[in-house]
């Protein structure tokens, strides 16, 4: 192990030789193609959604769930491969991802139980935006 000033030299430990580089690059390119294909699928679904909905009768909830799944898939590949988090040790991975699992659980709670349950009520809307409410609720002129 390489040391510098008494500490392991992690900067140098991360290095690899030309031969190992070929495999690494191949993996990176595979992830790139995957991200590209997912993006193309997303754009296509977004473009043709009205037709898809018309012919299959799927509800918009499925669209939202599908897009969130695609997004998390892409995010996972970016973080694990491009940001090399998959190559870090277990403690490091958990330290970074842990807070977000807690955050996501809180987000679900917030959406389903607290804010998500009342924020659509008209009584709460007026407080925030008089301009919109006026446009929507003022009696029509002329």
């Amino acid at each position, binding site marked *: *192990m390489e*040391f*510098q*000033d*008494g*500490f*392991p030299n*992690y*900067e*140098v430990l*991360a*290095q*690899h*030789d030309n031969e190992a*580089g070929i495999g*690494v*690059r191949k993996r*990176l*390119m595979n992830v*790139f193609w995957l*991200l*590209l294909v997912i*993006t*193309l699928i*997303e*754009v296509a679904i*977004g*473009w043709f959604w009205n037709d898809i909905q018309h012919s299959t009768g799927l509800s918009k909830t499925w*669209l*939202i769930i599908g*897009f969130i799944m695609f*997004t998390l898939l*892409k*995010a996972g590949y*970016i*973080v694990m*491969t*491009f*940001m*090399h988090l998959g190559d*870090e*040790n277990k403690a*490091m991975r958990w330290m*970074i991802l842990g807070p*977000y699992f807690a*955050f996501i659980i809180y*987000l679900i709670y*917030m*959406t389903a139980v607290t*804010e998500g349950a009342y*924020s*659509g009520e008209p009584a709460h*809307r007026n407080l*925030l*935006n008089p*301009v*919109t409410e006026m*446009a929507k609720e*003022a009696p029509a*002129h002329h």
Partner: protein
Amino acid sequence: MSSHAVAKPQGWGGGTSPLATSHGKLFMWFFLISDALTFSALLVALGFFRHKYADVWPVSTDIFTHFPFTHAHLPLIYVGWMTFDLILSSVTMVLAVEAGHRKDQKAVVLWMGLTVLGGAIFVGSQVWEWWIFIEGSVDGAMRWQLIDGQWVEKIFTGANLQYNEYSVTPHYANFFFCVTGFHGFHVFSGVVINMVAFIMAYTGVFERRGHYEFIEKVGLYWHFVDLVWVFVFTFFYLL
């Protein structure tokens, strides 16, 4: 500089770090964790307002239909192109990191140069999109506006922080400006940092230093910017 078998480890005395990561990379991760929470706050707020104004919230697919040099109706194609450009520059970035691990200076310079180019194209694309959004359509839309202390209903074209022709609620345009603006500024600063890394690689700073970890840290930031765009693309444009 570096020597094997150090007799007396300094610092906390444990020899190796439990995270097995250099402090520079660790602190870049700390910064990204907090920055991601800032973006999360913006996106959660967007979700909240979308839900609150669900009946008047427009469909982004119907608004972002423009493409340069053509009047064709191309929903999401321009945003798709921006996404593609950012993914591409992410790949060139990660290839620069990989080349750095092999201490291949020429390859690092090449890939960093392409990353800077990709980032600059993205910033330019966003400028164009903002311009189209602010300019608006020819017809505009009827909006209640506060003029000289009076609420009057008049044609309004384009968008600002008070009114926009896309929706009766100003929040739609506000979130467009805030979310893509905050992200765009990250891209802009990323391009500047990438340019610094490019120049340092070109002038051989990392060769003298013995490692290319700076590229790796810059890469973490740049991939984070791409990561955020993945979420913005979904939550602002697609849904």
